[in-house]
Structure formats: C-alpha cells, structure tokens
C-alpha cells in the first residue's frame, strides 16, 4: 500500500505521520493491515497515538477501558475533512472539465460522456489519495489554459479516454517544467505587457 502524505497538512494540524497513517487506515476500515503494521513495530505506543487523535477530535472511541478494537473507533468529520473524504472528488473534476469542443472538422463534440464508468475509473485512479486528486485537478486546469492559449482545444480528449490514458500526467510534467523555467501566464513576451 502506497500512501502520500502532505507534510503541510501535518504541520497545520499538528499531526505526526504515524497518526495520519492510522487515521487513513481507520477511514478505509483497513483494520487487518493496521494491526499487522503496529504489531511489527517495536516501541510503538498505539494507545498513545490513538488518544492524541481523539484529543485532536479526529476520532471518537467506543472501546471500553484500555482494550483496542479498531472497529470501535469512529472517524469524526474533522478526520474526513483532513483526508478530503467529505467531498465528491469526481464531481469536482467534472465541474472543471470542458463540456464541449469544436473539432478540427468544425463538428461540436461533447466531452463529459459515460460518467458512471468514469466515476469508477477516477476512484481507482485516485485511490483515496487527496494529493493525487489535487494534482490531477491542477494538471487539468493547466491543460485547458494551455490548450486555449495554443489553440488546441479541438484535440481535448473525451473524459473516458482522458482518464484511461492518464493524459493529466503529460500536462503535470509540462506544468512543472514551465514553472521551473519561470514561465507564467503573465509572461507575455517582449512588448506585450498590458499597461
């Protein structure tokens, strides 16, 4: 299992990576992996980590006494929010995906097709990872801006193909490249400054 962690989120919420990891597995109800993991680590005081999550109001416990039954922990709204699970990520993607384009032969084409299948693909693609969702969203925003600038909107893929071919990866790379070279939207070239 691969989990990405946004260190800025940890700093903001005063969480340790261990607490973040525990919370993530509890949300996914991945109790077996959680148990195997913590039993394999020496010197890990799981009770203390859980207590801190409760104090920070990410969790509530229905356990009695000192017993730890992971299935009796309830993730609170703050916990879902931390992992972005309170939002409909796919809907967020749809909201910014272009509705239609004019193909190079002049025909109008609608891009948001086969939404149920796309929802499943997107869930699998993001794997519950909000960082990945944010990355895809940024890449899509960049792609639409870039295509508008370049006049290549006609070549924007329909959503099922866009997801299946992971088109966002190409534009994510391009975005990072342009940012590393200091190119911005406002960089209009010599003589093109609007005053």
């Amino acid at each position: 299992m691969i989990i990405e962690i946004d260190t800025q989120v940890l700093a903001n919420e005063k969480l340790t990576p261990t607490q973040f990891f525990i919370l993530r597995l509890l949300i996914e109800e991945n109790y077996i992996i959680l148990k195997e993991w913590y039993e394999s680590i020496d010197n890990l005081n799981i009770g203390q980590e859980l207590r801190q999550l409760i104090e920070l109001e990410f969790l509530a416990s229905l356990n009695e006494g000192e017993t730890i039954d992971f299935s009796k922990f309830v993730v609170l709204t703050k916990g879902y929010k931390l992992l972005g699970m309170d939002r409909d990520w796919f809907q967020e993607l749809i909201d910014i995906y272009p509705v239609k384009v004019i193909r190079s032969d002049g025909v109008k084409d609608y891009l948001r097709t086969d939404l149920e299948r796309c929802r499943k693909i997107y869930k699998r693609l993001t794997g519950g990872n909000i960082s990945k969702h944010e990355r895809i969203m940024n890449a899509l925003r960049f792609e639409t801006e870039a295509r508008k600038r370049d006049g290549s909107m006609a070549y924007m893929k329909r959503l099922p193909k866009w997801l299946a071919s992971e088109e966002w990866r190409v534009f994510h790379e391009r975005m990072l490249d342009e940012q590393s070279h200091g190119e911005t939207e406002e960089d209009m070239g010599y003589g093109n400054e609007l005053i």
Partner: protein
Amino acid sequence: MAMNLSNKILPLRNIKDPTNEIVKYIADRRAGIVRSLKTRWPKFNEQCMGGIEPNTIYTVAGISGSGKSAFANSLETDLFDLNPETEFVVLSFNFEMLSSRQVGRKISYKLAKTTQQLYGSGKEKLNEAEYHAVLEEARKIERYPIYYVDVPGNVDEIKTTILHFMELPEIKGKWIVIFLDHTLLTKGRLGNSERETLSDLQHMFMEIKKYGSNTVIQLSQLNREIETTERIVKPNLHFPIRRDIFGSESIFQASDYLFVLHRPELLGIKEYGPSGWDVPNLIYMHILKNREGKPAIIKFKNNLKHNRIDQHDENNST
C-alpha cells in the same frame, strides 16, 4: 552602360552641430520650453514622451472599423483643448471623407450624440434645444486652427501643399501637426504600384518632419493576414505584428512611433491573446515601435458610436 549620376551633393554636418542641438533640446525640455502636446490618454502620454512631439512621425494602423479615424479626429481637437499654452496648427489631409463629415464627427464626439441622431437619419430627430447645442458647438469648432485638404493627391502634391502651407503668413514659423487619413488613398504616380507610392510617401514625410517643428500623424491599413482562420483560432497569434501592416517595411522604417489599434471582437474573437483578455467594447493599442521606449499594449474603451475612444481604467473607466 552609361550611368545617370545626379550632381546634387547632400549637405554635410559636423557632429558638433547635432550635439549642440540635442543639448539645447534637453535643456529646453528641462526648462519646460519644449513640451509635448498632451493627449487625453495618460497612459499614451506616459509611453510617448508626454504626448505628441515635434519632428516626429506617428503611424496608427488598424483594420477597418478599429477606430483609427476616431482616434485621429479626437486628437485633432483634444490637442488644442488640452494644450492652450502651446501655439500650433493642424493640417489635415482627409482623403477618406469630406471634411464636413469630419466636423460632424467632432460635433458627435463633443455632444455625445451619434451622427445618425445628428443627421436625423434614424427615428430620432434633433429637438430645438439639441439643434441649438449643435450650432453652439459648431461655432466653437470653427475657431480651431485646423485646415483640411479633402481632395486626394499624389505624394508630390501633398509635399507641395505642405510646403506652401508652411509659407503662409499666418502659419510661418508655427508648429504644424499634419494628419493623413489614410496612406493608401494617396494617389500614385503613373506606373507606380501601391507599395512604391507608400514608400515615396514615407520618404517625403521623413523629409517634411525635419522642417521647422512638423509632426506627422498618418493612418494606415493592415493587410488581411490577421483575419486568417489560423490567426483567429490561435490565441498566441492574436496580436498584430509588424508584417500585418500594409507596406510594413517602409512604414516601420519611417515611423518614430507605430501603433496598431485592434478590436478583436470585429474578427469574432471571444478572448484576446494568450491570457484571454476581455473583448467586448474594448480596443487594444499595440505600440509596435517606440523610438524612445519599449513596446507595450494600452487598453481603451470603445465609444465609437460617439466617435471617441477612452482610456480603460480597471477601477474607474474614464
């Protein structure tokens, strides 16, 4: 083969003379003796050494309907209104329309009425009060020292007319702002192509600007390249460039300042340029050549129905 060598020797000047001239110019500008003629567009003034300068050629190009004539027409009278302390006259070669229509546009501009309203060509007719306002404005306009030539001529005729005008007793020694609307309507000599005529015109203007304090403001056309589908659909190619100007080489060489007024909405463009700038009711002035500064773009508000264009202010449109 025999060569036809001209016996005319061009005048030689030691560098001392132009050096003294420029030092005097700097001193005069410093002391406020030499001032540019302010226009009513502060951003334009900022980019162009404070406004319109003597001994300078300004070219304003654009496609039909981009506001070139409105720009020039507005300048013609604004310069007098905004610079009452400076003595100058305007000589306007208006080959495109009758000078009376040009004055009609000025009245439209001053009274914020469309020319259709003024001429009563629509449903609305002027009422008595409005008609009196027109008469009053006309009396004011006729006092401007503006002289029109609305009969098209060739390059030699334009030159002779300017030289004759400069020698008139009431004009002699004054700063003359010469307008030409527009370059492509200049008649060609027999056998000359349009481009040759344009080139001759530019050479003539380069000579004329060196006499006295002459300023030339010429209007010109763009070729059709900016209207191609590729240019319209690709935002990176939206902005006008040098080669969009008809006869670009000679005009570019001769001009000290070269502006292109562009209304992207005329070409069906919804968002302008790579950053998707707004389009409705806007005119973009692209400064393609600025002899004393950097090229840039100025945004104007289109008020062409009243024959004026206004500088666009993001916070408070003026």
